[in-house]
């Protein structure tokens, strides 16, 4: 038996799959958005199953707080770009497939040209702006979209834009108010939940490729890992929503999805700029245990979760620069401060990770 037949033997002997099915898997091209909690199990199972071409797009880097659920990474990949780190791990798992890493942010500028190279899009992103962008780009390019999302102990799975089925907008035409739905870094998540939901997304992807079973189109599947219950709800296509998206194709590149989702524009500075600022109050909004500390900036320590209660302890007259580990929580912190009347507030892109690198560079230059 050759390697091909040995590697995929256990799925080839399923009479529903066979060599014909395995060839379909090997010819499939799947793009996974986000290599985080959902992305890791999706990528792992699709790689193992032999999906011929796998794209991975993620701009974020591996942080130690990711490791309890983002199972493709380890301590040796801390600080590495996730798309690149995932590709390296997956190439060891299966060197016979093509894996393409896009270590960049998905935007309206690159989405269409990237999507066009794939047959199926799988959404493992972690915010509404990206989810609406992914939905719309899938409609414009005519690709089925395998959706999964989690909240604390609950998950959702559905397949959109499949054989004239509904899209994400047919379910949720309007995004929720910014900040009304917290994400995992703010409220926490049990590591196995994205494992379960991501595995279900991988399963739906394989069903689409193989033409097997009932694809979860026209259905929203909900799972509660504490109650141990699941429910399915029938959804319907809303033609008007789809037509609106198709009509937006001409000016898609100019759509501001952050604005659409009410994400305010937050003033950003680079790590290099942060070290040059004078008469500034730095605020570190990370939890006490998070490393590295950037003592040289003499920050005050207020974890994001307690910021609202500690506003009175912040000097209102000076300029404020907020940072966290990677620049996500600090953005939230700026929004909170701005909505409480603080005027001169910005945050550091890339957070303490970027500050630490910049600090090392500064020291090297001094020597």
């Amino acid at each position, binding site marked *: 038996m050759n390697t091909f037949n040995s590697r995929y033997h256990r799925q080839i002997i399923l009479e529903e799959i066979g060599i014909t099915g395995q060839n379909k898997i090997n010819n499939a091209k799947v793009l996974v958005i*986000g290599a*985080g*909690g*959902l*992305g890791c199990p999706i990528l792992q199972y699709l790689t193992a199953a032999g999906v011929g071409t796998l794209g991975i797009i993620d701009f974020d880097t591996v942080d130690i707080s990711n490791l309890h659920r983002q199972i493709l990474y380890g301590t040796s990949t801390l600080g590495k770009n996730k798309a690149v780190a995932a590709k390296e791990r997956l190439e060891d798992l299966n060197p016979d497939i093509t894996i393409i890493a896009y270590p960049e942010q998905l935007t309206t500028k690159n989405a269409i040209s990237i999507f066009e190279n794939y047959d199926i899009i799988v*959404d*493992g*992103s*972690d*915010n*509404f702006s990206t*989810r609406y962008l992914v939905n719309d780009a899938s409609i414009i390019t005519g690709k089925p979209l395998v959706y*999964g*999302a*989690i*909240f*604390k102990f*609950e*998950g*959702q799975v559905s397949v959109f834009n499949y054989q004239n089925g509904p899209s994400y907008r047919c*379910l*949720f035409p*309007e*995004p*929720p*108010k910014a900040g*009304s*739905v*917290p*994400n*995992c870094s703010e409220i926490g*998540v049990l590591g196995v939940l*994205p494992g379960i939901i991501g595995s279900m997304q991988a399963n739906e992807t394989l069903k689409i490729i193989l033409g097997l079973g009932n694809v979860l189109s026209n259905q*929203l599947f*909900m799972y*509660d890992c504490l*109650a141990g219950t699941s*429910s*399915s*709800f*029938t*959804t*319907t296509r809303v033609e008007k929503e789809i037509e609106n998206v198709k009509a937006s194709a001409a000016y898609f590149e100019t759509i501001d999805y952050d604005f659409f989702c009410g994400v305010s524009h937050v003033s950003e500075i680079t790590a290099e700029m942060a070290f040059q600022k004078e008469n500034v109050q730095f605020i570190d909004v990370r939890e006490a245990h998070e490393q590295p500390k950037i003592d040289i900036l003499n920050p005050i320590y207020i974890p994001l979760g307690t910021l609202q209660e500690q506003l009175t302890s912040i000097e209102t007259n000076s300029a404020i620069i907020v940072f966290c580990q990677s620049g996500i929580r600090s953005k939230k912190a700026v929004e909170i401060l701005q909505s409480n009347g603080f005027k001169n507030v910005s945050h550091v892109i890339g957070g303490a990770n970027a500050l630490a690198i910049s600090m090392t560079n500064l020291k090297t230059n001094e020597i």
Partner: protein
Amino acid sequence: MQHTIKYFGMLVEATSKNEEQLQTEICSVAQLIQQLEHRYPKLNEKNFKVAIDQQLVDNDFIIKDRAEIALLPPFAGG
């Protein structure tokens, strides 16, 4: 009319309930939402879709007796 209402995701926190029995007059989904928002003001700021007997419906849908109603919010986490 007697209905069972199930809450999902962050709506559990907004109502402090997973599930409850509710008595209403005959009403549409929009009227039901109004009643629930009056009872649970935190629902006002939430975004959700309503399913009746496992089928997502629009706000003008008229709810029949003994319906199983589910309030489904979108999740973003990944």
